[in-house]
């Protein structure tokens, strides 16, 4: 017998009698012998709780914690203790997609709150109940552009988008039959003239741009939405979610779709997941939107209640004609985001961004002062920036890792550069200690 299986030998016998078979193996009688597994699985024997705990603690100990000055889509922000505490409530975590709305109002309400919060932050009308991560959410936005357009399958994408997002979009485009065209960059931002020429060809279903971009630069999208709309091209803006609280929102820029990763809203870096992708749009595009949607309605007693709605877009009804194959709503992560934003409020979100801005700018200047770095772009940034290392960037990064610091990520296509980030979690002492160390490293 085993702790997760309640069956006694007596139970099993009584149940077999009801079914009318003699043994558990007889329940598999119809399976051809030649494809059955004869013998046991080549796996270790069962382990006690303490043994499992020991093995996994040991693995965690083989990782080395580094003070994080890296971003590129994953940011080390503070998580209030209340967030994991509430998200861990098993009434939430051990439930499934809220098909039976009468006993799932908890899930439905926090998703409704999440939708409200994300629609508000992005300045859009509606949000879906979330996607896997920022890269797949952007790929879904790309396919949504094509799905919403009539007879266009070309989508433009700024080459200043995060490399991980670009890579996923390329994969989806290749298999889905989307012609994904990269818009060149100039001085670290999307070349607006190149974008204009492409848009004026009148054959692009959408344009995807990024904010802040892969160098950390805040781009200026003035005039872009009007240009897109004149040529029936949808504008999608991918933004780091936390920055939405202070930077001009996709809605304010005139975008049709807002997408990205909401990891920066209090979700641990967790070696890359689980995160949560957000996808928001205008009401008019609701039927082109992938993913689950929760809506408000009333019950038989006329109380305000919440249900999954607009399901006719989805795979379980529309099969191959669905807007997407996605069935997931990252419920657990929606709850994380809803709790985080509730606790932080407007003041907290502003403060997080102000502190991240201040610490990143302090770090930026301190690194330049060492004389071992130089500016690459003269452009505004929030909490992430790119510097050229006067010497071997990779060696410097490795040397710092040996001393317990993760200094940025290598900048794609610029081998001597690092893209570096800071957040409100980084203290002046951490920065000063690392900078002092850098001064001692010969490049």
């Amino acid at each position, binding site marked *: 017998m085993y702790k997760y299986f309640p*069956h006694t030998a007596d139970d099993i016998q009584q149940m077999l009698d009801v079914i009318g078979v003699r043994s558990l193996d007889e329940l598999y009688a119809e399976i051809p012998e030649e494809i059955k597994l004869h013998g046991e699985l080549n796996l270790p024997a069962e382990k006690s709780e303490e043994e499992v705990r020991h093995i996994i603690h040991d693995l965690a100990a*083989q990782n080395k914690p580094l003070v994080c000055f890296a971003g590129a889509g994953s940011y080390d922000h503070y998580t209030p203790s209340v967030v994991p505490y509430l998200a861990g409530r098993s009434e939430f975590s051990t439930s499934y997609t809220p098909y039976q709305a009468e006993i799932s109002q908890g899930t439905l309400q926090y998703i409704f709150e999440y939708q409200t919060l994300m629609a508000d932050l992005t300045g859009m009308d509606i949000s879906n109940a979330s996607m896997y991560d920022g890269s797949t959410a952007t790929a879904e936005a790309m396919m949504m552009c094509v799905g919403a357009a009539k007879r266009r399958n070309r989508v433009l994408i700024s080459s200043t988008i995060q490399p991980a997002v670009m890579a996923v979009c390329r994969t989806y485009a290749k298999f889905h039959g989307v012609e994904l065209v990269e818009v060149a960059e100039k001085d670290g931002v999307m070349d607006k003239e190149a974008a204009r020429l492409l848009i004026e060809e009148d054959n692009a279903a959408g344009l995807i741009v990024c904010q802040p971009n892969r160098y950390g630069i805040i781009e200026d999208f003035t005039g872009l939405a009007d240009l897109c709309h004149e040529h029936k091209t949808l504008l999608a803006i991918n933004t780091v979610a936390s920055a939405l609280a*202070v930077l001009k929102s996709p809605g304010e820029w005139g975008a049709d779709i807002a997408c990205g990763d909401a990891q920066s809203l209090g979700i641990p870096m*967790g070696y890359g997941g689980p995160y949560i992708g957000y996808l928001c749009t205008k009401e008019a595009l609701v039927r082109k939107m992938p993913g689950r949607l929760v809506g*408000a309605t009333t019950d038989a007693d006329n109380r305000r209640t919440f249900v999954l709605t607009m399901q006719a877009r989805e795979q379980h009804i529309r099969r191959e004609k669905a807007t997407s194959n996605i069935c997931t709503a990252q419920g657990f992560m929606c709850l994380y985001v809803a709790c985080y934003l509730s606790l932080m409020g407007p003041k907290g979100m502003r403060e997080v961004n102000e502190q991240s801005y201040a610490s990143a700018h302090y770090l930026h200047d301190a690194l330049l002062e060492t004389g071992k770095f130089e500016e690459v772009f003269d452009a505004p940034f929030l909490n992430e920036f790119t510097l050229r290392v006067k010497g071997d960037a990779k060696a410097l990064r490795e040397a710092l890792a040996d001393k317990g610091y993760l200094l940025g990520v290598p900048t794609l296509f610029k081998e001597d550069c690092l893209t570096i980030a800071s957040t409100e979690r980084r203290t002046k002492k951490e920065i000063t200690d690392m900078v002092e160390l850098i001064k001692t490293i010969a490049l």
Partner: protein
Amino acid sequence: MNRTYYGKLIFELSRPGRVGYSLPKCEFEAYKLESLDGTLLRQTATLLPEVDELTVVRHYTNMSNNNFGVDTGFYPLGSCTMKYNPKLNEELCQLPGFNQHPITPARYAQGSLKLYDEVQKTLAEIAGLSRFTLNPYAGAHGELTGLMVIRQYHISRGDTKRIKIIVPDSAHGTNPASAAVCGLQIVEVKSTADGTVDVEDLRPLLGPDIAGMMMTNPNTLGLFETKIPEIARLVHECGGLMYYDGANLNPMLGVCRPGDMGFDVMHINLHKTFSTPHGGGGPGSGPVGVRQGLEQFLPNPQVINNGDGTYRLQCDENSLGYISFFLGNFGIIIRAYAYLLSLGKENIPMAGKLSVLNANYIKESLRSHYKLPIDVECKHEFVFDGLREEYGGDHHDPEHVTTLDVAKRLLDYGFHAPTIYFPLLFHEAMMIEPTETESKETLDDFIAVMKRIAEEAKADPALLKSAPHDTPVRRMDDVKAVKEPKFTYKAL
């Protein structure tokens, strides 16, 4: 579960000036965000709530009390494998050592890379395949990734004509939807009267344009496709690959492996078969495994065992590309590893066998009251086609008691409803999957309640038609939700 409806939204608890966080004083006063050019800054205020910490705690706690989970009670939701989620897994996935930035140099993330490799090896052994990627985020994402592997394999051989995929008519809607996202055309193969794939209908569909065939085994009716060796042979002979949808892997654990059935590519739902929590719809994890010879096509990055106790990340140029930000839902993978280690080689097969025992026990106990459209031994789940005629289930009668009515009445008795109106092969489908973690007493209670509901349907159908009566809220107006759409608090 608390049967008093809470129903408030966080926005309604907001009072200007309240805060629920604390941050240290800024140490870098010289740098001001306001110095950014105003055209780059947000002009409209946000509607974020202003609430104190206890208000947030009570709000979400009250909300959780209106929610039903596996920890609350029996959740026989067919095709979802709502088994118990062990608490040890939850403890271990939160170890601070695993909370690293994804772009950490591999030599400082050796513990995580080793864990990843151990899980992929274990899954490969359970599946009878060569290698797994754990990068896909969910079952549907795994399906899509697996289909991309199949297409990439054909493309690598210069065979670009294979653009069609065969899907059984009983398949879950996700199969054709994933195929469409992958740019494949769907060819449906019919089922025979016994609910399995019609091999005679399949033969003429096979040709040089077929990329492969998607199947789940046991199928969506919970029936084992006994002709699988022949089907696999036919598809392979025409040059296609066999894709196994692992949604129904649970009953097969340690008994019959997809690789041995003849499948080349498959996904596994860690949140079904390997006990990670469903989280209200996610995050899940959908690892994809392949037969020997197809490993190079798996998505990047790949975790490679150097053979000397160290691990590295590698990108293969033959790979289909990237399908995720990094290595998938790593936190879910840790949970699944704890489960796999705990069960070991002895108990993994027992999970499968007991899930089959539980399903057959319910089926045999309730067939007196509910219509059993296909009368053979099932695996981990089975489908009833509504109430029997003598209990008011004749669907030719416009006043008949429907599966929806039964499902809603079940909620009154403290059970989650089965999956309803799927598969589409029957009018009043009711798909029941108990899983192995439920005791005989729980099943007996459920059986007794299901029989009582059948009696109620006969004596007082109105009681079912207006159910549920004893839940936090009552039946909802679905039509209103679509016709007067309100997706945000602002729209209310």
